[in-house]
C-alpha cells in the first residue's frame, strides 16, 4: 500500500521518584522530546521532528509512552531520546529518563509487545513479593489479565457481541 510509514517507539518513562509519574501528560512529553531533539540535532532535527511526530499513548500509572515518528528519519530522532533527563511540569523539573522498550511499524505490534512485556513483568514480580498479601494481589492481577484473555477470545468467536455494539451505536 502506498502510505507514509511510521515507526512507533514504545518507551518507559523512568522517574527517580515514582510518585511524580502521575504528573505525566501528553503535551509535556511532547515538549520534552522536542527540546531534546533541538539540543541534540539543532534546527535540522527540529524540522524533522515537526513532520508527523506525535505522542500516541500515555499511561501515567505505568509510565508507558508511545511515540510516533516518520520511518524516514526516526533513527535520528530516536538518538535524541537518551538526552532527556527531565520533564518540565508546571515550572517543576521532574528528573526522568526514557527507556525505549520496543520499536514497531504499527500501533498494533506495539500493543502486542506491550501485552507480552507487561505480563512478563508481572510474572517476574511474583517471586520477589515480600508479603503474602502482596503476593495475593499480584497473583490476582496476573490471573485477571490472563482470564480476560480467555474471555476476549470467546468474544471474538461470538459475533453477537459485535451486532449489539452496533445497535448501541445507532441509538446514540
Amino acid at each position, binding site marked *: 500500500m502506498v502510505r507514509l510509514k511510521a515507526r512507533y517507539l514504545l518507551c518507559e518513562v523512568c522517574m527517580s521518584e515514582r510518585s511524580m509519574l502521575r504528573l505525566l501528560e501528553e503535551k509535556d512529553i511532547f515538549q520534552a522530546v522536542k527540546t531534546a531533539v533541538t539540543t541534540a540535532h539543532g534546527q535540522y532535527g527540529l524540522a524533522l521532528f515537526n513532520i508527523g511526530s506525535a505522542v500516541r499513548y500515555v499511561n501515567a500509572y505505568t509510565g508507558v509512552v508511545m511515540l510516533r515518528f516518520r520511518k524516514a528519519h526516526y533513527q535520528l530522532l530516536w538518538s535524541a531520546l537518551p538526552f532527556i533527563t527531565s520533564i518540565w511540569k*508546571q515550572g517543576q523539573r521532574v528528573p526522568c529518563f526514557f527507556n525505549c522498550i520496543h520499536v514497531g511499524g504499527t500501533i498494533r505490534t506495539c500493543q502486542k509487545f506491550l501485552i507480552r512485556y507487561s505480563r512478563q513483568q508481572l510474572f517476574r514480580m511474583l517471586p520477589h513479593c515480600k508479603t503474602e498479601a502482596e503476593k495475593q*494481589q499480584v497473583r490476582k492481577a496476573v490471573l485477571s489479565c490472563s482470564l480476560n484473555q480467555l474471555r476476549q477470545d470467546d468474544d471474538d468467536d461470538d459475533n453477537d457481541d459485535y451486532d449489539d455494539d452496533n445497535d448501541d451505536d445507532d441509538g446514540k
Partner: protein
Amino acid sequence: MSGAKDRMRHKKMRNQPSNMTYSSSQEFPNGEGSGGSAGQGYSRSQHTKGPSGYGQSQQASGWVRGRQDGPVPRDEVLPKYITASMFAKARAAEVNSMLKAVSKTTGSSHVFGALPKHMRRRAMSHNTKRLPRRLRELADRMLEKSHHAGQKEKKEQSKTKSRRARRRHGNLLLEFNRRQRKNKWLETHIWHAKRFHMLKKWGYCLGERPTYKCYRASYRAMSSGCLLQDMSYYCCLELWGPEEQLMSALSRLTSKDTGPTFAAVLCVSGQREGNTLLYKADQYPHQPMGPAQFLWRPRNAESSLRQLWIWVHPTIKQELLSELQVVCQCFEAVSPPPSETPVEAGPSDQPSAPASSDLKSEPQHPGKKRKREGDGKEDKPAKKILGDGTRSPMTPVSWRSAENDIVINDLSMEIVRYRLIGPLSHAVLTETLLPATNTEIDIESTSSFWWPQHCKNKDSMSLHKQQADVFQLLKGVNSTSELPAGCVLGLTVDDPRLTLPKKRVTAALDLQAAQDVDEEQRRDLTLRGVPAPCAQTALWDQDVRDNVTNNRVLEQEMNKMKRELLVPGSRLPVFPQSRVPILLVHQAGKQQGEERRGWGSGWDLLLPKGWGMAFWVPLVYRGVRVGGLQMSLKHSQNKCLPHFPHEFPDCPAGVRFQEEQEVELLNKFKRRPPAKRTNYIKHGCLAPFRCPWQRLTEEWEKIVKQDGEEGKLQSAEMEGVISQSGEDTPPTSAFTVLRSRKVLRQLSVWSKPSSARNSRVPRGCLPTPLLNTASAMELQAQWRHCLVWVRVCVLGKGLPTLHTMLCVPTAEDLQQLRKDPRSIGPKEPRHKDHLQHLLKRRSKRRKASPQFPASEKDEGTPAAVNKDSSSSSAPKDNQDSVVTSTHPNLSTSISKGAESAVESSSATDLSDSCKEYVRGLWPEPLPSVSSHCSRVTLGWVTQGDFSLATGNGEALGFVSLTGLLHMLLSQPADQRGSVLVRNPTSLQYRYARLHVEA
C-alpha cells in the same frame, strides 16, 4: 457532515486504549464506584478521541489512592510510595486494554473489515457469497438491516396486502367506509368517481365535470334531450307542526317582496313546489341566507299536523337550522336513534323495525366498526354506508319545541334527489318508471313489507290508480316545459332494475302514446297541473322510507335471480319488497326574459335513501347525459337564474365562496413568473380576483350626491329627498342585492330601449312610472347600497369572463355606436405601473445601502411621465395628478374631491403595503374603484361565457343600483341599457346590452 465523520472515527477508535493520566480538570467524588472502599482518585482524560474502553474491571477493583481535589495541592495528595499490588494492578489493567485493542478489529463497521486484505473481493457487501462462510451469516444480517433502514419511514400497511386482497368486497367496503368519514359520499359516488373529475366541496365529494368531452353535448341534452344530475347533496330539513304555527314562524324568514313565500296558496296545498329566498329572522332586506325550495305535504285527513320539506344548499344548512330553531323555538334536541324521532308515531309494529334501527345506527360509526374488526371479530361484515357517513351517532337530528308542537328534523342524505333537465325528461321518466303493478295480490296475508299493507287500504289504492293514470298521461306531453311549473306527482313504482334494457337506448317521445292519450285530459294536465291529492306519497313517512331502504333487493341477489331464470334474458317477476314510493317534482324552466321561455325545465326525482343506484343506472340506460356541478352552473346561467353560492355576494355563503375564489385565483396568478403575468395595474383593473361590492355601492352614492349638489339639475324638492334620505338611514350599512320583484320589474322596463318598450308590455305588470329624475331619486332613497343582478349580452365580438368590468359609456361612445352599430368600441389608454418603479428603486436601494430610508424626492420623475395616461400615478404628486387623471371626455362629473381623498389616503400607506406587493396587482388600499379608468365602472361580471343559446358572449353580474339609475337617466331613450364591458386582461371596451331580469 462532521458529525458523521466523528461517528466514523468514534467507531474506529472505540476499542483503542485511551491515555491514562491524572487530569487536573476532572474530579471524581469519593466512593462513587462500585468498588466502594477504594476512592477513585483516579481520573482519566481522553486526549485521543474516542471513548475509554480502558479497563472497567480495573476501576471496579479500585486503587488505593487518595482523592484528588485539584491541581494545586497535588503534592500532598500524591502518594509517597507505591506498593507492589498497585504496580501489578496498573500493569494488569494496561494489559487488558491492550488485549482488547489488539484482539478487536479496527477499521470500519463492515464485516469484511476484519478480513485480511488479500481476502477482500469486489462487491462483497452486495453478494455475501463472496465472503468466507464463517462471516456470511453476520454479513447477511447487516445487509438485511441496511435494507430496512431505508424503509423505516414508510409504514405501508395497506401495500402489504395484494391488490386482489384489497379489492375483495369486504376489504373494499371497509376502505370506502374509511374514506367516507371526512367527506360525505353520494350514493352514486363510485359511479361518478369512475367518470368524473371529483371535487371535495361543502363536505361532500361531488363530480364537477366528466372526464370526457361533453360540454356542448350536455348543453344539447339540456335544450333538446335530457341531462341527469345527482342533487342529493342538497339538504332537506323537515318541519312538523300545525299549519298556523309553521306559517307564523316561517313568515319571519321570508318577504313577499321577493316573490311567493311559504304561504303561497298553490304551494300550501302541496300541489306545487315553491322557491323562495330566506333571510335571517325579521331582517329583510338585510342579511339574506340563500334560496330554498320547499314542499308541503298535502293535507291529511287523519292528522292536523302539516309536514314541510325545505331543501337548501349544504352551505347554508347549519345557518338555516339555527335560524329555524330560533323562530320555531325548537331547542330541545330529541335523542338520536334507535329511539328515533317522536315523529314516527305511526305503526311501528313491523317486525323489521328493530332490524331497521340496527341497520340505521350501524353505518353511522364506521370508525368504531373498523376498530372492532381489528380486534378480531370477523363475524360482523362491513356494512355499506347509507346516508350520512360523517355524522357521529350522537349528533341530534331532531329538535322539539317546548312551547308549540313544531318538530324540526334534519333529513339531509335521507332522501336522494336526482334532477332531470331537458324537454325529454318526462319521456325518460315514463320509460324508466313503471307504476306498481298487481296491487290485488296477497291482501289477506301479512307481510313485513310496506306495500302489501298499503294495498289493504282502499283509499290509498284508488289514489295509486289515479296517480298511475296521471303518470300515463305524461307520455302524451310533448315537452316537459308544457307542464305548469313546480307541479308534484307522488307515485309508487316497481324496481326499475327489473325493466332495465339490455343495451343503452335513447328515450324518445312516443308519438303513438301521445295520440292514444285523451286530448281533454292532457290539456287539463298541462293547464292545471297534477291534481292536489296526487301529490301524496308514502315517501313522506319515515317508517315507510326505512322499510323500503332496509328491504332493498341487493344487486347481487338480483343478478343471482337473473342467472337462475329459465329463459335467459326474460323479465324477472316483481318481488313484494321492490315497490318504491317516489316523488316527482317539476322544475320550471326559464321564466324571465323574452327569448327561450321554458328552457331548461325538468323533473326532480326524489327517492328514499339506498335506492340511488337502483334508479341511477336505469336512467342512464335511457340515454340521458350526466352532468356535474359545472353543468348546474351553466343551467342556471342559461335559465337566467342566479346560481347559489356564486351569485349571492351578500349571503354569508356567497362571501365565503368569493374568498375561496380569490385565494384560488391569486394562487393561480402567482404560479406564473412575474414577467409572464398579466399586469393588472397596466390594464387599470383594480380587483381582478375579488369584486369590492361594498366600495362600489358607497362610491356611487358619493358620486351621485356630489353630482346632485354640483349640477344643480334638480328642483328644490329633490334636494329635500336627498337630505331626508341622508338623515334617516345610517351612512354605512352592508350592501344588499335588490330582490324586490316590483322594483326589479320597474328597472327591467326602464333599462329597455324605448322602441322595444313600446313593442311589448310585460304581462301582469302595473303601469310603471316613467323614468325620470324624481322617480329615480325616490328609488335610490329607498334602496341604498343596493346591487342589481343583471344579464349582459355583448352586441358584437367579445367574450366576457369572470370579473369583467361593466362600465358606463360616454356620450361619444353612444354616438359612435349609433353611427356604426358594429363598431368595436373605445379603448382604455394603458395605465402606468407606478409600483414597478417603486419596486425597482427599492431593490436597487436595498442593494446599495439597506439602512437608508426611502426618500420621496425622486418619485416625481415617473409621475411626470405618466401624467397623461391616467390616474394611476406616483404617490408623491397625487393631489395634482388627480385633476388630470379623469379623462377629458368623461361626461359624468365624477366627484373629484372624493376620489382624491381616497387616493391620497391610499398613497400614504402605499410604501408600507409595497412589502407584500404582488407584482401586477394593486396593493391593498385600492384607489376609487368606480372612477379608476376612463369609463366609470358600474359593476362586475360574476359569470361570463360564450352562450351556446344565443351564439355570442353573455354574462351575469351585478351593478350598483345608484349607478344604473344614474346611467339610465343620462342615456338617450333609444339607447337605454347600453353598457361597455372590458375584460380584466384587455384594454378593449365592447358594447353590450344590459337586461334586468324580472
